[in-house]
């Protein structure tokens, strides 16, 4: 009798848990270092200096009183789990973003930095 229960338990577990798990990571890389911001002085540095240090921006946006250069990199982490009857999928995408604001003379007025790419996590939908 014990053997039968054991076989049944194994069969039920293999039935319910048969499936697979996939994890994946995507990275949209842009090689900017936030430590290089020390070289820039708002009110003095120019757009040319910014591009010499940080390279070509991901995006340039025209503003009402100047321009904004956007530098962006992204990390995406995905988890998919297939069971017999259930499938779970979870994708999380986070960015590191650096935005420089220039006046109409292309002089740096402000900049903002967000470092969130490392916050992307694997997991299941909650």
């Amino acid at each position, binding site marked *: *009798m014990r053997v*039968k229960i054991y*076989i*049944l338990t194994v*069969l*039920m577990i*293999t*039935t319910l848990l*048969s499936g697979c798990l996939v994890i994946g990571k995507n990275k949209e890389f842009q090689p900017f270092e936030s430590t290089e911001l020390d070289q820039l002085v*708002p009110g003095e540095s120019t757009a040319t200096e910014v591009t010499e240090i940080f390279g070509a921006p991901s995006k340039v*946006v*025209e*503003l*009402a*009183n100047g321009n*904004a250069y*956007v530098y962006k990199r992204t990390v995406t982490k995905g988890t998919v789990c297939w069971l*017999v*009857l*259930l*499938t*779970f*999928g*979870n*994708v*999380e*995408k*986070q*960015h590191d*973003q*650096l*935005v420089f*604001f220039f006046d109409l003379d292309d002089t740096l*007025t*402000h*900049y*903002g*930095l*967000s*470092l*969130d790419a490392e*916050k992307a996590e694997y997991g299941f*939908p*909650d």
Partner: protein
Amino acid sequence: MAFRINSLLVLIIILANVLLSGCVTYQIAKYVEGDVVNVPNEELEVGKTTLEEALSILGAPDKVAKVGVENLLLYERELLYRNRIKVGIPLSELIRGNLSASAYGTLVRYDSLALFFNTEDILSHKTFAEGSSYPYLRTLFSAQQ
């Protein structure tokens, strides 16, 4: 008799494993883009807060745009939830084609903080929409578009 019942149960489990695998599936999917949008209302005062202060509090915005004679800074988080049920009978071994039916519901919600700055880089107005506060099923099946 007890043995027969157990054997039948074993047979049912094996058959279910073979036949139902991939035939009936329920999928739960979630997609998140962006970090949690915090709204420090006390620190963001219309007519007073400067662009520099906003950037030091909130960091780089997710989107920047020119709106008329003002600049818009948008901080945004996207949340997508999808539930899907699929029922199918693979008949391709017997006849051409398969029978299947599926139903799904996808809800995309946004938490968005929009800050508008005038040409003097002073906050002129702000608005926050917390889409994530709306529950999945009730929002998906509500009449409201």
